[in-house]
């Protein structure tokens, strides 16, 4: 058990993100790609994700304002969004993306709108939690640094 209280807090924060289902093992895979030379890799990827996916969220938003819905287009956007979300281990966001796509495929407009609202909530929640986590990590030094065999 780490004696440093901040590091302990960081570890608890990190574990709860997994326990509560916000993150899945894909996040751990990203952590494995971090090392002393690239200590902020995970934060960089997550930052890139939020910056890049904002565009997709906006596209979906606009597409949901045009009736009737172009379900093909919506599904296409969500496919991309789901892909990136999956790559950073955003578990709940990914689940909502899957749900949205199912509604697209069954041409369920109501379902799409509901799923999108829920998705945006999860997306925003995760962002807040990860921002807090990375902020603490920067102060303490990241927990997970991969040690690779030479």
């Amino acid at each position, binding site marked *: 058990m780490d004696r440093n209280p901040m590091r302990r807090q960081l570890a608890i924060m990190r574990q709860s993100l997994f326990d509560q289902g916000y993150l899945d093992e894909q996040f751990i895979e990203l952590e494995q790609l971090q090392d002393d030379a690239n200590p902020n890799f995970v934060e960089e990827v997550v930052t890139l994700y939020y910056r890049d996916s904002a565009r997709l969220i906006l596209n979906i938003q606009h597409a949901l304002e045009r009736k009737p819905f172009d379900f093909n287009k919506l599904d296409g956007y969500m496919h991309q969004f789901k892909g990136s979300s999956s*790559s950073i281990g955003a578990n709940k966001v990914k689940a909502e993306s899957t749900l949205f796509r199912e509604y697209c495929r069954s041409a369920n407009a109501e379902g799409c709108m509901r799923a999108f609202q829920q998705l945006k909530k999860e997306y925003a929640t995760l962002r807040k939690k990860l921002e807090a986590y990375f902020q603490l990590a920067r102060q303490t030094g990241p927990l997970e640094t991969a040690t690779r065999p030479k």
Partner: protein
Amino acid sequence: MARNGGVTWRRTEKIDGFNFSPTDSTEEVHVLAVDDSLVDRKVIERLLRISSCKVTAVDSGIRALQFLGLDEEKNSDGFNDLKVDLIITDYCMPGMTGYELLKKVKESSVFREIPVVIMSSENVLARIDRCLEEGAEDFIVKPGIFGRRLDSGAVAMSVPCARG
């Protein structure tokens, strides 16, 4: 072995200076990574660099062909210092799909020996079959690949013909 992500040049003792000897077994594997997703490109680039590969990452099949010198517009004289040993490409991309890129590479007399690995977030058997039939070396379901630590040995083994 360079881990800092830059392209490394290895100078040989030959008079003509920079020269990649294809029989040099300690040479880094050069991978051309193709993916329209910014996030995935960043991750795969990092993964490959950690695995001691040189990486060129592009965002489309068209750009991949341009890099190889296979596009219709440019006429490459065939000499490329940055010889590509392996192509890893996403399947679903706007414009040219990974499958179409695979076909172009396999149709080329110059590049058909380069192994092409396809990545996809969707586990569709027909898609996998189609790619393997067209000559893909492997088909990987994302994001599973990002967990792999490709050691140079494993990557080199998937480069059977490129090394001669």
